[in-house]
């Protein structure tokens, strides 16, 4: 990879839960269980999976909002896996987070100006004029214009799309190198969704910004990211270029996902789709072998349900974690 920005190696994040009488049994929710990925400067990748697969935990662990249980994160040549609180301040400035629910992510009692000023103050921009300049510049960037109309408003006075623009403005005001966008458009209407995705794409191009786009919606990925990682039950089960995965999905789970997503087509109503039975497993006690095996239509008994499949590079840059290719 040319000009790499982020390396994630075998990352694990376990959360402790206590069960049983007086919480005597210690169990672990293995939310991220051995994930590796790499990201170049200015690249956008998607992490796709259903709720509970660990994609949000992965994003937050990469941002070091969680301390990793195991594995390694290298950002811009520096190992940040176990950075101390003080040193993390530097990393906070280099990264940003865009959450799913913009209204929940914005403090209701602060004006737009105050919301954007906060990170600048924390990161030591002492000159008031400079802060103001930056605020105007970033509002221009996310097209919350005319700026005078917005700058003294409170979050509840903005529409959903405008709130999300503000969240994005806040995440880029320190000019970070990496942004994790966690379902940034899933609560928005179709048209606004496109508007926000186009804005993110524009920022990626003009700032040479790297973006990790976390979503459950495969259909938006093709308009946005260059590569896709498919997650299932805390594992990455398949990764490849976006076009390649959409054209040639290999893992049975990816195939199932692609198969059920509808395009607007009046003939849809006449066909019953094939859907794998069951539900994703519990991450406290995931099934042995391949975690998808209880639902898999191409299960090989005595193999898939016993031994965890290796991740194999089937084609150039196309990795699959499945015994069919192992």
């Amino acid at each position, binding site marked *: 990879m040319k000009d790499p920005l982020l390396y994630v190696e075998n990352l694990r994040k376990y959360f402790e839960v206590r069960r049983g009488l007086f919480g005597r049994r210690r169990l672990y929710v293995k939310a991220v269980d051995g994930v590796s990925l790499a990201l170049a400067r200015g690249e956008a990748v998607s992490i796709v999976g259903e709720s509970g697969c660990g994609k949000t935990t992965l994003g937050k662990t990469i941002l070091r909002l969680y301390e990793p249980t195991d594995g390694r994160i290298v950002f811009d040549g520096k190992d940040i896996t176990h950075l101390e609180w003080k040193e993390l301040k530097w990393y906070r400035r280099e990264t940003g987070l865009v959450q799913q629910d913009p209204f929940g992510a914005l403090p209701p009692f602060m004006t737009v100006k105050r919301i954007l000023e906060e990170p600048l103050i924390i990161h030591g921009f002492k000159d008031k004029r400079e802060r103001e300049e930056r605020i105007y510049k970033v509002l221009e960037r996310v097209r919350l214009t005319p700026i005078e109309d917005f700058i003294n408003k409170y979050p509840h006075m903005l529409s959903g*799309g405008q709130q999300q623009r503000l969240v994005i403005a806040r995440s880029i005001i320190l000019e970070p190198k990496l942004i994790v966008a966690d379902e940034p458009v899933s609560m928005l209407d*179709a*048209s606004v969704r*496109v508007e926000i995705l186009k804005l993110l794409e524009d920022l990626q191009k003009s700032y040479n910004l790297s973006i990790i786009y976390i979503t*459950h919606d495969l259909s938006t990925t093709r308009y946005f990211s260059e590569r896709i990682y498919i997650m299932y039950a805390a594992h990455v089960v398949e990764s490849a270029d976006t076009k390649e995965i959409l054209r040639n999905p290999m893992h049975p789970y990816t195939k199932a996902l692609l198969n059920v*997503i509808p395009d607007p087509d*009046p003939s849809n*109503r006449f066909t019953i789709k094939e859907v794998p039975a069951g539900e994703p497993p519990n991450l406290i006690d995931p099934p042995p072998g391949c975690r998808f095996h209880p639902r898999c239509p191409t299960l090989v008994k005595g193999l898939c349900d016993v031994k965890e499949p290796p991740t194999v590079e089937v084609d150039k840059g196309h990795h699959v974690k499945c015994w069919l290719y192992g």
Partner: protein
Amino acid sequence: MLSISSLVMYYRTLKGEVRAVDDVSFSLQKGETIAIIGESGCGKSSLAKSIIRLLPRNVSRYKGKILFNGVDLMELDEETFNREVRWTKITYVPQAALNSLNPVIKIGDQMIEPLLLRRKIDKKEALERAANALKLVGVSDAFLHHYPFELSGGMKQRVIIAMALLTDPELMILDEPTSSLDVLTQANIMNLLKKIKREMGLGMIFITHDVALSSELADKVAVMYAGQFVELSSAEEFYGSPKHPYSQKLMESVPTLRTDKELSFIPGSPPSLLDPPKGCRFAERCPFKFERCSQDPPITFLDEGSYVRCWLYEKGRL
């Protein structure tokens, strides 16, 4: 079976009158499904509630005709409506219904409540019917004796749908039935609804903001904007060539998986329902706007049962 004409429902707030449903007309045959598509706040949930007469307390205007099997529901008094229509002939699955299950009552006991109250049958028979309904939606009847927290999201949604089927309704109103579910679970529920539609022949009103998903059920499609239907078309017409400029722009913003297309969005945002603009409500965002648009556009019937509310389609212009 169902024929609604000029339905209006406004409610009063501190800021003024909200015109949530403003002159909506459509009809539905037995066994047919209409999808109502629109952005959040366009009034689609209010429309559903107006049909089943679950009105906000501050309702200020509620009129129009709702003919259901030849009877005008607007003429019925509350007691008759409650006994004979609501939750018997017409059932309603509200948005985020899976969170509306009572956490401390067993599934079975919750399910049979409408039967005990409305149909006056004894508990044993009611439980039997609940068991059958559960089997129909693909949930083991053992869950009758379980509590909601023991079920996954998809299963809860199935239970809710089973509840809505218990009274042998003729019409089922589904408000965003899958919006909080995962992709695969959503596909499962859509399969189930298709099967129900096919086997039981009941009419459905399917409310959603998801254009692609709506094509999984819709025989016809209504597009709602700022409290009004701007287009009503058959599924073939709508997904092939939407008529109203808003429908066209909406379709252009839908990402597709299988075909390459450039996405575009509609600049601006929908008008407030408090004080909608004079004339066409979409005019301000419309690429085809011309002088006439400052007056209320007429409803132009294009085909049997399909219409568009736009000056571009005015009779004689076509």
